[in-house]
């Protein structure tokens, strides 16, 4: 910026950025701080407040319902993120070509990601439910009893995982495809000259070139799945008896079912720290690799 415009620049800078910054401060920063403050209160939805220090956090530490929801959330993330990453990578490798067929397939694999969680769960409810679902109809044709996917304690979490993988494939595939486009073609030509096999080309060239994308996909997905909510709320209602209750569903039930706002806020802060940790880990993993170069 040249010096002659200095003064006017001051004013217009705030005129242009001001509206956003104002909303940012009131709708994001203020609630963020309010949330931290609330987590130290005994507070209900209707405005009663008492300072209780770390009481809410101490209660969380000894609350088996919360423990189970944390465990469920991690099991879900573990059942979702690795298969999702591997399947998406394989599909991206297969679809990374300029043919019209590949474009159609890319469209198919991405289509589910534009649907809302409500529609996805509606669709999968009537795939999985034993009384009218597609899987039940198929099992009947095969002469088997339909499995209670949405009500058996051992089956609800896998059902949520399958639904989520089906829903979330599109984005990682697109990220991997974009990553593959960044691999310089001359490396492949060199490999072809070396008569390197498809397998060793993948391990020696493709995978190392995709490391950055791989980290991005794993971290984005982990952060997203730790916040899994709609599927659990709508498909299984967290049941049976909490077997598929996730952390966010726990928070939702505590606040909007038991009106215990302070307690819910404390649980939300713990989730926030987990997600923040993962974001920082991603940042670290990417920058460290760049520093190595």
């Amino acid at each position, binding site marked *: *910026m040249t010096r002659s415009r*200095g003064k*006017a620049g*001051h004013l*217009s*800078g*705030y005129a*242009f*950025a001001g*509206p*956003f*910054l104002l*909303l*940012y401060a009131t*709708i994001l920063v*203020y*609630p*963020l701080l*309010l*949330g931290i403050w*609330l987590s130290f209160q005994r507070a209900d*939805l209707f405005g009663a407040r008492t300072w209780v220090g770390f009481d809410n956090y101490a209660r969380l530490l000894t609350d088996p319902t919360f423990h189970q929801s944390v465990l469920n959330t991690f099991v879900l993330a573990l059942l979702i993120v690795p298969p999702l990453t591997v399947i998406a990578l*394989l*599909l991206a490798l*297969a*679809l*990374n*070509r300029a043919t019209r067929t590949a474009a159609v*397939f890319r*469209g198919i*694999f991405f289509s589910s990601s*534009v649907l*809302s*969680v*409500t*529609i996805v*769960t*509606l*669709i999968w409810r*009537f795939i999985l439910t034993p009384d009218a*679902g597609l899987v039940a*109809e198929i099992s*009947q044709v095969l002469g088997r009893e339909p499995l209670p996917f949405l009500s058996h304690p051992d089956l609800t979490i896998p059902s949520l995982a399958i639904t989520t993988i*089906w829903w979330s494939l599109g984005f990682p595939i*697109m*990220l991997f495809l*974009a990553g593959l486009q*960044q*691999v*310089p073609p001359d490396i*492949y030509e060199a490999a072809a000259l070396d008569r390197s096999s498809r397998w060793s080309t993948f391990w020696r060239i493709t995978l190392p070139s995709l490391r950055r994308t791989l980290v*991005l996909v794993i971290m984005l997905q982990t952060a997203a799945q730790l*916040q899994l909510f*709609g599927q659990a709320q709508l498909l299984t209602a967290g049941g049976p008896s909490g077997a598929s209750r996730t952390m966010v569903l726990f928070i939702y039930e505590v*606040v909007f079912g038991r009106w215990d706002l302070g307690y819910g*806020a404390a649980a*939300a*802060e713990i*989730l926030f720290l987990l*997600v923040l940790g993962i974001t920082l880990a991603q940042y670290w993993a990417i920058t460290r690799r760049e520093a190595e170069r």
Partner: protein
Amino acid sequence: MSAAVSRNRLPIAATAGLLLGAAIMVTPLVWTLLLSFKSNAELMRDSATAFSAPYTLENYRSILVGSSVSRWLLNSLIVSLGTTAGVLILCSLAGYAFARLDFPFRRTLFVFVLLGLAVPEQAVILPRHQFFALLGLHNSYPGLILPGLVAPFGVFFMTQYFRAIPRDLDEAAMLDGASRFTLFWKVLLPLTIPAQATLGVFTFLGSWNDYWWPLISATTSDRFTLTVGLASAQMNYAQTSGLGFLMAQAVFASIPILIVYIIFQKQIVRAMAGTAVR
């Protein structure tokens, strides 16, 4: 698609896997579509009747005549379009300021906005609910739209885009005596249309599919968005509506978003590529 595209043929196993995967993706959608064209009474007896005629448009007629679904659709359109317009305006203004103007604390404020990218919705949604209750904003369009307007990624995205525009353009326009706002509005903004399209499509998709916030903010049926309305219909399905009707609602609610997806496929793919390269 450019250079790094592989030209060799896929091995048979890979082709088989691809076809199987595509079948798994498509089957649930086809099943939903079939169910939506069946009469509720027939499905009540046996949902396998979905595989055979007679099919009917009755469920779609019930949606258009005397159900709340059209109202929810209207609400979703108002909220999503309002959010999209707001995000584009706010992020363009802020992006221009951060990219081009010199003002005190510019860098600090930019970093401060970027930190917002690391804040998950869970950390703010409960206190925001409290705050909005205090302001009496629940069950209103502003209450549904405002949270979506805080888009740190949009500001980052637009700032990067404005930075990439050569400064010669500004200098030339300034020499012609253009005011700062004219420069922004008439010269620079038209150049950012591709970025506007990308950010716009993503904001629209995100807003249209948002569930958590409208679930707790809109509690009366006339303010439900489609996602919340369909969730309530899904929960009450046993007592009230039939299976075919429910699935017709799902199809009906997906149509607008599928249209957006088909029209803006290019922008979506380009934006994804951008995320990966960043």
